[in-house]
């Protein structure tokens, strides 16, 4: 068996397990935890398109989740448009906003960029909280939007069981992962990585760094916004502080950083580690000592940064490399860095 075959087999097995999981996990509780896990993995993978590959650290991505949720929900509530269509509209809108934000901010470096994205996101959230209606559109200020229960159907994007939500987010995750995989192996991926690491050197090699970043920002925002619609339809209720606040933005970035930003598997690994940790510590520990779970969360964050600053993907893939070499009996293959 060659290395390629091994990789392909493992991927297929992983995908099959993901698709088959609901056969084993029938409890809606655990299904919900899995849905949120995939939801965060999806969000982080979308974030990774710009935050990982373009070498910047955006800390305001929740605003695009908000744009997605608001667009599709307002279209549904006021114009009866199916959330599926609203989802795409929201995605395009978010991509446009992303480009508008990116145009000036991509000139900034490091800390300035971080703070700038925070300011944009918080500024937009505060605006939304101050706006009751925007022309004919009812935004409803800080109260947020409620989606009434409708007959469960695909068209209404509402279902009785958790299963359809599970498969929707799983498919969304697979799509964005495939896209990431494709990008990382294509010209734009190379250009992004180069521009992120050494902008001047990349420019000298014919890379229009700003344009590349804008493109990745647009893609990232588009996909992030889709998750907003998904969230709105899953919860049927959202409000600015909860959906567009910094907590979500930070959590997305943390998952990527702990998993390994700029890698394909990083966001998924990050979500696999952090989400269950988040859920179970809250379930089992918050009862006796409120806040203990967040202390543990913070400690893990610090420990990972202390010992594996590149994230958990690098050591894991090294282990996998070793194992794969043993299985495929490739004599001391030149491991290509992931």
């Amino acid at each position, binding site marked *: 068996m060659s290395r390629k075959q091994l990789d392909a087999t493992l991927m297929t097995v992983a995908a099959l397990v993901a698709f088959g999981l609901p056969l084993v996990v029938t409890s809606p509780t655990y299904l919900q935890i899995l849905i949120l896990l995939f939801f965060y993995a999806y969000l982080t993978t979308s974030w990774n398109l710009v935050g990982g590959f373009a070498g910047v650290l955006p800390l305001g991505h929740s605003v695009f989740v908000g744009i997605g949720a608001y667009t599709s929900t307002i279209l549904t509530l006021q114009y009866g448009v199916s959330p599926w269509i609203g989802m795409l509209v929201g995605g395009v809108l978010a991509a446009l906003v992303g480009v508008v934000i990116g145009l000036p901010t991509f000139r900034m470096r490091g800390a300035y960029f971080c703070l700038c994205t925070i300011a944009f996101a918080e500024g937009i959230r505060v605006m939304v909280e101050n706006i009751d209606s925007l022309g004919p559109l009812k935004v409803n200020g800080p109260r947020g939007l409620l989606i009434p229960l409708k007959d469960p159907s695909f068209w209404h994007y509402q279902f009785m069981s958790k299963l359809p939500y599970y498969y929707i987010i799983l498919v969304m995750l697979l799509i964005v992962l495939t896209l990431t995989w494709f990008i990382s192996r294509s010209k734009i991926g190379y250009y992004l990585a180069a521009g992120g690491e050494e902008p001047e050197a990349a420019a000298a090699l014919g890379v229009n760094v700003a344009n590349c970043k804008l493109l990745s920002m647009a893609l990232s925002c588009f996909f992030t916004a889709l998750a907003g619609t998904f969230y709105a339809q899953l919860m049927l209720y959202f409000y600015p502080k909860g959906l567009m606040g910094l907590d979500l933005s930070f959590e997305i970035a943390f998952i990527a950083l702990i998993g390994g930003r700029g890698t394909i598997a990083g966001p998924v690994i990050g979500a696999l580690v952090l989400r269950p940790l988040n859920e179970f510590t809250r379930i089992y520990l918050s009862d006796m000592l409120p806040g203990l779970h967040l202390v543990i969360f913070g400690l893990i964050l610090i420990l990972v940064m202390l010992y594996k600053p590149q994230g958990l993907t690098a050591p894991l893939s090294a282990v996998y490399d070793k194992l794969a070499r043993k299985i495929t009996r490739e004599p001391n293959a030149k491991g290509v*860095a992931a």
Partner: protein
Amino acid sequence: MSANILEITTLTKHFGGLTAVSALDLHIEKGEILALIGPNGAGKSTVFNLVAGVYPPSEGTIRFKDAVINGRKPWDLCKLGLARTFQIVKPFASKTVLYNVMVGAFLHTNSTAKAREKAEEVMAVLGLEHLRDRLAGSLTIADRKRLEIGKALATNPELLLLDEVMAGLRPTEVDDMIAVIRGLRDRGVTVFVIEHIMRAVMALSDRVAVIHFGQKIAEGTPEAVTRDENVIKAYLGGDYDAA
């Protein structure tokens, strides 16, 4: 079309009140190796940066292949066939050597396979194949300099600007590098170098231009230039200043 691939006329650059380059005229013929030398702070790197589009000139014109390229952005110039290296090398440190070279190779193709093919070819020319899968950040200075040329070469340049690619190399490495640059010229690339190591300048260049305080003080064959009184004065003065 003139025989000159690059023509610089009355090029001037001010930084605030400081004039880094002043009314400089310079040209490079196709297939030539021109060396730009001068004491520290003479404005050599500024000239390079102006030509490479890092910043626009204050006055004067730069013609590349008969087209005025004043104020054109680096990435556009690269597409026109003008590539450069940096004095302080800028490898994509967390990526492999192959990856680094492929970034350059993507200039004329959208296909990853073709870019890899091109990159392999360039690496073979420069003798980088054995470092293919090493991370660029882990290379020695000499290999980094070589990689820097490799990246630029992968863009298929007609004119290559080399900014002190010999600095910090051991004598044997300098000899290797001289051979490499000569090889480039034999492949039809015009080369414009900034260099400090006079041995290399003498061995390499067809012509040498000397600038001092942003002004050209001499130009000619390497032998003629080293005999020029102005040049000797400038260099001695420069040395005294430095000491």
